């Protein structure tokens, strides 16, 4: 069952795919999200390479120790898991250091490509990868250590320049660490205000959410089912309870209930009305997505009326877990202020 992947001690089945994912994500975040910003600030004299040099810790951080397993197989798995954890921390820190420095903004190549002012001649080269698995892991460990050191120096330089408050950074780090409904809300709100992001989200799923500094997760592909004036989507996993928990946090209890899994498929319109109090108009088709472990579907709800002037941050407060599954619409501005409607589950116990 897919849910078993939640357990930290489940075994990896395909080392190569895990290693490739770390290689690709690490090079993406280094060359697209971190180093362009270092160079951007250096070019403008806001925070130079020499500032980084001065801020760099004099002692090298202790090298991460490889997991000591009795068995070679376990040792490699432990090293890969350690790399995945370090990648997560690297990604989060890049997000936290994306603060304005003396009025400059965070620069990311993806945004510049979309704006059309990107010159590929300034692209930062990604490292090629290859060779036997243990060599690739060793290269990743060496790369990771060097990349972490530069990011560490950058962070310290930001603090020295007064652009970053270490206490505030720790507080934010604790917040963004956990996958939660907040990630889903930010994804939806960005899609509501940014049509280019929405297109990328629907076409590429997880890759698109990197732009929001949300770790893209490690499970299959993310599918996005967009609600339209003519179609209302709802997600279920009839075989077990596949859910993008690595992106959205814990699965709601009723999603795993047999009542929901059986009824929503056979009579979606009736189940939405009876179990969730959601009346889908007769001229709107209901489309059920039976989610598997390969594609984890989320629903992109429709933007509520009366929110035309709302900011992205305000819009995110209208997105509930239920609206991401499709058993509810996003909250209207009036509903948002009614505490009874926040995070409303099924009207009655589904079992």
């Amino acid at each position, binding site marked *: 069952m*897919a849910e078993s*992947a939640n357990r930290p001690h*489940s075994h*990896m*089945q*395909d080392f190569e*795919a*895990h290693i*490739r994912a770390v290689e690709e994500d690490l090079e993406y975040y280094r060359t697209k999200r971190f180093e362009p910003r270092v160079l951007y600030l250096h070019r403008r004299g806001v925070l130079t390479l020499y500032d980084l040099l001065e801020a760099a810790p004099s002692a090298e951080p202790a090298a991460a120790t490889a997991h000591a397993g009795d068995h070679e197989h376990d040792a490699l798995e432990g090293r890969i898991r350690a790399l995945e954890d370090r990648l997560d921390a690297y990604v989060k820190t890049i997000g936290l250091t994306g603060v304005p420095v003396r009025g400059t903004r965070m620069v990311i190549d993806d945004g510049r490509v979309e704006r059309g002012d990107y010159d590929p001649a300034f692209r930062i080269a990604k490292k090629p990868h290859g060779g036997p698995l243990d060599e690739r892991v060793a290269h990743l460990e060496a790369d990771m250590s060097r990349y972490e050191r530069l990011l560490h120096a950058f962070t310290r330089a930001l603090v020295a320049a007064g652009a970053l408050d270490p206490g505030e950074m720790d507080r934010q780090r604790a917040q963004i660490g956990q996958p939660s409904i907040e990630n889903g809300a930010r994804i939806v709100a960005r899609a509501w205000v940014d049509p280019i992001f929405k297109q990328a989200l629907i076409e590429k799923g997880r890759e698109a959410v990197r732009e929001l500094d949300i770790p893209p997760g*490690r*499970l*299959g*592909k993310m*599918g996005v*089912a967009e609600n339209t004036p003519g179609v209302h989507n709802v997600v279920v996993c*009839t*075989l077990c309870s596949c859910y993008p928990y690595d992106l959205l946090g814990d699965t709601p209890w009723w999603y795993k209930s047999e009542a929901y899994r059986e009824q929503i*498929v*056979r*009579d*979606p*319109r009736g189940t939405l009305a009876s179990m969730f109090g959601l009346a889908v108009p007769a001229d709107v*088709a*209901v*489309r*059920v*997505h*039976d*989610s*598997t*472990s*390969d*594609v984890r579907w989320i629903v992109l709800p429709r933007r509520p009326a009366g929110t035309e002037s709302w900011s992205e941050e305000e819009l995110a407060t209208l997105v509930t877990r239920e609206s991401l599954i499709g058993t509810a619409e996003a909250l209207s501005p009036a509903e948002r202020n009614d505490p009874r409607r926040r995070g409303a589950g099924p009207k009655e116990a589904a079992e």
Partner: protein
Amino acid sequence: MNDAASRFGIGDRVRVKAANPDGNPRTPAYIRGKTGIVTAVHGRIDNPVDHRGIYPALYTVEFELRHVFGTDSADRIASDIHEDWLEAL
């Protein structure tokens, strides 16, 4: 995800095989033998957490509920199905 050649395209009518002993057993039972339309082509998906190997190309196929369950519903169900489960019509 790899860009392996995909046999079906969006809009193709396909039938799910009634049985496919070597295929992914997670293809839902209620759509076996049913006819639907391809609405998305996902290609081959690496899913190391859940599968040891890599299954053939994956598609989202939409079915009419009235066809699947014999009800009078006008609604639809979409399921993600690997290529080896599908036959062209």
